[in-house]
């Protein structure tokens, strides 16, 4: 099964790297992403048991399929969006036409490395592919020729790579643990899950913390988050969408897997859970306060991604079945909502040639679709009922309440600050300005993804089919939260 994924991706990369027109490259990428999404969706729908490939170094279980599925969808939508958006970037001179091919190669390559990361059965491979996603994302950021993009990419590469080095130390420790415990050294997830019970807790804690540092940086947790707003705000909007929804999920994915390793071992589990909760709350706090005075739309959304990651880590750290269930759901929902917001931001950029609040105004008059998309995304993020964040938030908060009421209060207060920050910003950009610029027509290819995401987000909030809950339960089972 996995081989299909890899073959499709490799074929796409190959085809894109041959000299072709922009349109054909776009179509190939669309096909590629759609195939990936459909395959993963099929896997999810049929609940296929874990599949192994390549000496069991790669595998796909429900969690992997879920992550690939979400990434596939968002990559597809971002590709559709890219068709019109890239043209506009070329027109304004932000994108060099020579770089378009480079863009599509990196784009497809990023999806491939994400698939490999999500489906590696080996911590070391995950580490490597996670690093690869960093590099490819950095390339996608520098595809725009502004010097600022280079700085942003540098921040991204340095901060995450440095943290990943420490992760590697943790990995070596874990590796040696298995060797001395079981004779045969391994980093395979499935074997680690079996062995984890008997690891000496002290060393396990150390290796967990070191591993966590790397993946925390990858998912943009405070204090390793600083690359995230920089990179996400400088990248083209469709790239920001995939960065914010898929690429940072790699970190969370790894954290979920690592955390589920600690579960059989109470001492480690308690420590890990406290660590994650602490990081989650600090992240939410810093992100919330940082959002209040933001004047750059994409930075604002990026910070809300940081906040979302904080919430996810917090939920994972709580470690109860309910919390994890909703964290998994939230992981997907967060991706979709973020994609919606970044793509709307892309439309706004196309209209105003800027992401900054002081140049955006009269949004409702000029780009109602983008306004509605942003408002919808904002509403979803602040946890409005009938949108996908509401129930997960309440459930996670109720689990937090079981742990500590003051922390609960703190977190809810921080959420209120986040919500206010959104409203402050949105009210600013819909207000009338001095002069009304000409309304620019948005191409259909840019409108379609926003509409699709809008509908998905709305439906996901309104209806919660049993199938989804079944899939989530399945994932939990595979992670060791046996029912």
């Amino acid at each position, binding site marked *: 099964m996995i081989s299909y994924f890899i073959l499709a991706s490799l074929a796409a990369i190959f085809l894109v790297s041959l000299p072709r027109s922009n349109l054909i490259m776009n179509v190939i990428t669309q096909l590629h992403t759609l195939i990936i999404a459909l395959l993963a969706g099929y896997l999810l729908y049929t609940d296929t048991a874990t599949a192994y490939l390549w000496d069991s170094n790669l595998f796909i279980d429900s969690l992997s399929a879920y992550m690939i599925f979400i990434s596939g969808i968002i990559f597809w939508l971002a590709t559709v969006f890219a068709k019109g958006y890239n043209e506009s970037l070329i027109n304004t001179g932000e994108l060099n036409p020579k770089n378009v091919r480079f863009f599509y190669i990196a784009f497809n390559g990023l999806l491939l490395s994400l698939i490999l990361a999500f489906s590696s059965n080996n911590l070391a491979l995950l580490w490597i592919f996670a690093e690869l996603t960093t590099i490819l994302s950095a390339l996608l950021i520098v595809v725009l020729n502004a*010097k600022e993009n280079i700085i942003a990419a*540098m921040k991204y590469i*340095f901060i995450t790579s*440095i943290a990943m080095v420490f992760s590697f130390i943790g990995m*070596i420790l874990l*590796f040696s643990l298995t060797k001395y415990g079981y004779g045969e050294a391994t980093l395979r997830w499935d074997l680690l899950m079996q062995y984890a019970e008997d690891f000496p807790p002290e*060393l396990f804690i150390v290796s967990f913390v070191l591993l966590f540092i790397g993946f925390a940086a990858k998912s943009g947790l405070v204090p390793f988050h600083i690359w995230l707003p920089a990179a996400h705000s400088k990248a083209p909007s469709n790239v920001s969408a995939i960065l914010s929804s898929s690429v940072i999920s790699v970190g969370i994915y790894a954290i979920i897997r690592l955390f589920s390793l600690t579960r059989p071992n109470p001492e480690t589990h308690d420590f890990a859970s406290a660590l994650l909760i602490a990081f989650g709350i600090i992240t939410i706090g810093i992100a919330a306060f940082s959002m209040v005075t933001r004047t750059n739309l994409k930075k604002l959304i990026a910070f809300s991604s940081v906040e979302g990651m904080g919430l996810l880590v917090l939920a994972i750290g709580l470690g109860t079945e309910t919390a994890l269930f909703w964290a998994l759901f939230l992981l997907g929902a967060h991706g979709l909502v973020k994609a919606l917001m970044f793509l709307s931001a892309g439309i706004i950029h196309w209209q105003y040639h800027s992401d900054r609040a002081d140049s955006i105004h009269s949004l409702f008059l000029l780009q109602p679709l983008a306004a509605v998309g942003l408002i919808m995304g904002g509403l979803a993020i602040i946890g409005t009922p009938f949108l996908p964040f509401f129930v997960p938030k309440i459930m996670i908060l109720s689990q937090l309440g079981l742990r500590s009421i003051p922390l609960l209060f703190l977190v809810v207060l921080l959420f209120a600050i986040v919500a206010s920050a959104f409203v402050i910003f949105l009210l600013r950009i819909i207000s009338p300005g001095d002069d009304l610029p000409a309304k620019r027509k948005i191409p259909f290819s840019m409108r379609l993804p926003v509409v699709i995401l809008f509908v998905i987000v709305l439906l996901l909030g309104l209806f919660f089919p049993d199938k989804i809950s079944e899939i989530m339960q399945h994932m939990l089972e595979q992670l060791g939260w046996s029912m």
Partner: protein
Amino acid sequence: MISDSLLEGALKALLVLIVISALLLLTRKNVLSLFRSYALQSLLLAFIAVVLYVQERKIELLFTVVLTVISKVILIPFFLGRVQQKISIKRDAEFRYIKPVAAVILSTAIIVIIYAVFAPLLRILPVTEIFILGSVIGISMTFMGLIVCYSRKRVITKVIGYLTMENGVVLFGIFLIELPFLIEMFVIMDILMVVMITAIMSFGMNASVEEFHVHLKSLRQWFKEEDASK
């Protein structure tokens, strides 16, 4: 056969040399000499691996030696040298947050701290004292590389810092356990990519980030956002 104590002595000597090379990286101002120090450090790493091979006879260690020599002693310094020629930076004399002398003192402190934290933990594993020392020095080197990353201005120096961190990890790895060849291979490739890309980007940036900043200052509009906040 070479006696164990001799090997142990050699290991100790190499470890001390490696620490010295890391300290050199913290203090040297000439960019070319930084590269040379890095190549030297990598070579020392290879020697350590050879010594360990002599001691333990594990074929994976030889792989490590070969990979290290090819990538870190030859390829990367050569590549960095090319980049340095193009951007024509000779010296990196500015330090931030910490002066070289203080950095040396801090590094010593870090070695002590890491020893205090890790040594008792590592003793859980069935390893000898020299291995523990090696691992501790490995982790400390990672931190020293990190210090290089934030205390030096030029991006090219930061890359050296990152590479030092990487060397630290390899040191830690070869003392504690050997990774499968494949993984090692991948990691090296990965690091090559990182180095290449950052180097190319720093090339794109022409100079240090700061000078860049000065250029950009003239384009006020880029920094409106900053002004608004003040």
